[in-house]
């Protein structure tokens, strides 16, 4: 820790921190426009100039590291004049639009103009005249408002999408795509990271206009449950409706990301396919009925079938819903046939695994995983890995194919993953043995000898301090062997994590939704169960009705499976329920309710409790402690196993994620994207 003085206040800051962040610790705000927390300062806007005692000229606070004994003055006359000058210049080329601008209240330019008392610019009025790009329903770009700070360019570059850049220099420069094309003709994935960092109104959601001012919004922190990442989000609501969604991780966090599905999918809360009332199949058509009727029919069927009832669910339900389902199925209906879609891609053991700390990792290994922002398969992991590699971390890719992320890998081990892992383990053992034998030969001959990729990988393992292995669940067991070997060889032990395709796979497994009877695959085909109770957006079902006597579907939207059901029960969507999930790194995260569900829709747990009451056995709402208790995993000592990929889990993650989110995609503006992509392919 370093001690310094800022504006007379004593501050203690960690070594290597820049002055802007250090001042924030002392609650002193140094004005800045182009600084982005978490990234190196570039010093383009010159707003953060501060005077340091002992130095003649002012220095930029964003790129100057704190030193012990530094005395910093952030508000001398000289730097205040420069700041005023800069804001004055920017105002001269910015539309003076605060009255109707959607950024009013949260605009940095407005804030600084207020702080420096600038009513209008004292310089000549300049207008760029560049037209806005509003041809897509996601993001609107308006260069008139752009202050050329470059934050969007840098964010897009470090996360690997590289869509935006400066065109031209000086006052006529413009932030735009390659060849100045509209966004949908570029490589843009519409993740909206640029919208989150823009300090003014130049990049915003396309439908933001007329949806209220920022101070009208209620902001709720929650999670997105569209895929295995479980990204943090902030939901802004007005008058009980969702207005917009932003990434929720704090500014500067390596995890701050949300893809187009999470950011713009909320339109589906009001789509036509929303189930708003219980329905019963009459003469091959679904007819609306009351809750009382629905409950009596369902409970009757469940009582009748007893042991031959099968429950299947997606892993996108919350911990509390899963715990209630488990109690309902085993204690009330007394059946052993409970399974989830997790069994399509993972075994329970890999989902019960330990946590990992990805933030501190300086070496990441991905095994069989293909995180990809462009196909929206675990896109946040793709962005996180690219950002960390940009900041100096190393990456080893072990994959039988050619994932896009291999282009930023430090070592790319292409080939059958199980045999690659086995080879890697052998190389680790050999390299450690040779080090013990002759430590000098390593430094002498190492530069001349050509090292194989495996040897390079082994070197990275030896040099790293914090290693995280992200594996597909089918290769989890084989990957833990590496941890066992590293432990044996007294190398730093990697944390191994199996990354599921669905958001709450770990939570749902820990809550006990693991089958003791029939499996998911058997039940969905209709084998050996008379009554099938399907919860959630059951994926990869082509509308074929499973061969059961009675089918109950409980979901928020009318899926193709639901259309074949005998009874449909309306459930609350993710943004309409409270609860918790366990994310892919093992963290317990809170999901908060943002809006009310439609009148007749209920959360999953409410429906189970209601049914249980009618069936004569009361179950209580799960408490916080009950959920926390269930998430406690006993960490056994990992042992060596065979280097084998587990069979039966070969599902295409792209197809699965699209299928899991089908109602969201088809019921929101994301459908536009699918049609544009189809048109391009054609």
């Amino acid at each position, binding site marked *: 820790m370093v001690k310094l003085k800022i504006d007379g206040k004593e501050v203690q800051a960690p070594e290597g921190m820049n002055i802007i962040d250090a001042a924030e610790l002392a609650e002193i705000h140094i004005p800045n426009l182009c600084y982005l927390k978490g990234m190196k300062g570039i010093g*383009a806007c010159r707003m953060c100039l501060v005077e340091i005692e002992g130095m003649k*000229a*002012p220095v930029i606070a964003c790129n100057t590291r704190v030193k012990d004994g530094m005395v910093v003055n952030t508000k001398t006359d*000289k730097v205040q004049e420069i700041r005023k000058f*800069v804001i004055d*210049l920017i105002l001269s080329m910015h539309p003076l639009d605060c009255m109707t601008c959607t950024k009013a209240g949260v605009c940095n330019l407005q804030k600084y103009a207020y702080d420096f008392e600038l009513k209008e610019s*004292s310089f000549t009025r300049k207008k760029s005249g560049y037209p806005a790009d509003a041809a897509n329903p996601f993001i609107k770009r308006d260069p008139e408002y752009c202050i050329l700070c470059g934050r969007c360019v840098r964010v897009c570059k470090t996360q690997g999408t590289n869509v935006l850049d400066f065109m031209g*220099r*000086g*006052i006529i420069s413009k932030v735009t795509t390659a060849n100045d094309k509209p966004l949908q003709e570029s490589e843009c994935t519409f993740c909206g990271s640029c919208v989150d960092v823009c300090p003014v109104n130049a990049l915003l959601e396309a439908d933001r206009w007329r949806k209220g001012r920022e101070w009208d919004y209620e902001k709720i922190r929650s999670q997105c449950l569209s895929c295995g990442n479980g990204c943090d989000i902030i939901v802004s609501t007005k008058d009980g409706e969702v207005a917009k969604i932003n990434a929720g991780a704090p500014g500067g966090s390596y995890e701050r990301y949300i893809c187009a599905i999470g950011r713009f999918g909320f339109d589906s809360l009001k789509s036509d396919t929303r189930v708003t009332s219980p329905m019963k199949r009459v003469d091959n058509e679904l007819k609306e009925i009351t809750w009382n009727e629905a409950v009596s029919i369902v409970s009757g069927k469940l009582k009748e079938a007893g042991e031959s009832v099968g429950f299947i669910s997606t892993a996108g339900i919350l911990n509390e819903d899963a715990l209630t389902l488990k109690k309902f199925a085993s204690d009330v209906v007394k059946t052993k046939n409970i399974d989830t879609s997790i069994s399509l891609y993972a075994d329970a053991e890999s989902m019960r695994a330990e946590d990992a700390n990805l933030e501190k990792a300086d070496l990441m290994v991905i095994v069989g995983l293909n995180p990809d922002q462009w196909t929206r398969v675990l896109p946040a992991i793709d962005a996180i890995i690219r950002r960390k590699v940009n900041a100096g971390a190393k990456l080893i890719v072990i994959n039988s194919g050619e994932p896009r992320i291999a282009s930023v890998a430090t070592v790319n081990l292409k080939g059958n993953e199980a045999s690659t892992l086995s080879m890697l383990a052998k190389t680790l053992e050999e390299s450690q043995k040779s080090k013990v034998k002759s430590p000098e030969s390593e430094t002498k001959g190492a530069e001349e000898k050509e090292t194989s990729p495996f040897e390079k990988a082994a070197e990275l393992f030896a040099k790293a301090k914090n290693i995280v292995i992200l594996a597909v669940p089918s290769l989890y067991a084989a990957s833990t062997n590496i941890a066992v070997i590293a432990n044996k060889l007294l190398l730093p032990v990697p944390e191994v994590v199996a990354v599921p395709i669905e958001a709450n796979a770990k939570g749902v497994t820990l809550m006990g939704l693991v089958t003791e009877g029939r499996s998911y695959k058997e039940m969905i085909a209709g084998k050996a169960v008379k009554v099938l109770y399907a919860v959630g957006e059951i994926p990869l079902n082509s509308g074929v009705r499973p061969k059961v006597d009675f089918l109950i579907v409980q979901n928020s939207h009318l899926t193709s499976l639901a259309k074949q059901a005998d009874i449909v029960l309306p459930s609350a969507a993710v943004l309409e329920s409270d609860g918790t999930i366990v994310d892919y790194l093992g963290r317990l995260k809170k999901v908060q309710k943002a809006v009310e569900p439609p009148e007749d829709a209920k959360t999953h747990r409410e429906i189970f409790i209601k049914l249980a009451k009618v069936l004569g056995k009361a179950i209580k709402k799960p408490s916080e402690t009950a959920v926390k208790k269930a998430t406690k995993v006993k960490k056994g000592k990992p042992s060596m196993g065979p280097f084998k990929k587990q069979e039966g889990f070969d599902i295409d993650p792209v197809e699965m994620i699209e299928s899991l989110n089908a109602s969201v995609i088809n019921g929101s503006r994301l459908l536009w994207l699918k049609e544009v992509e189809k048109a391009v392919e054609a």
Partner: protein
Amino acid sequence: MSEEILAEEKGKNLEEIKKEAENKACPVQRNLYFIEEFIAGPMCGRGYPCALGTQEAKIRLLRISQHLEGVSPSDVEAIRRIASNMIEGSFCKKGKDTGRFVIETLAKSEDDFNQHISGACPKKECINLIEYVINPELCIMCGKCQESCKYNAIVGEKRELYLSGYLPFEIRQKRCTRCGECVKVCPTGAIEIITTKIEEEVVSNK
């Protein structure tokens, strides 16, 4: 070969620009030249004080030198402010040098700047503020100026010995572009450059 290209791209260095600026007599023109060289030369183009400031400074200098509508003492103040902020706030040496040059010129010749605002160019360089006139006392009506003028701006009749009465030679201000060709060919130095507000003695240009 590549060195030449690099040298071309590097642009003129500070000394070269200063020397060429000295060719201009009027300090306003000197500043304008310096700023235009700055904008035309390679620069990072990102820092606000430099990139945006010089564009604004150019607009103000053009206003002063061409006596455009709206010119006022605030233009000089703006230029001074831009230049001093460039010295303190800019990223690189180029920006700081430009700022220093402008401030020094302003300090040395502030009076000249102020005269421009009233409509006069003491060094007689700024085109909109000067006029070319023919002094009838020195004019021998040889007609050489009329021949040299590409813009047909000079009216008058050549003196013929047998004619009595004559049309004096005059320069039509609306057509005159202040190119200076007529001054070069006049054998008696009868063409003077005056600045509209202040009238001085005949200055013979060589």
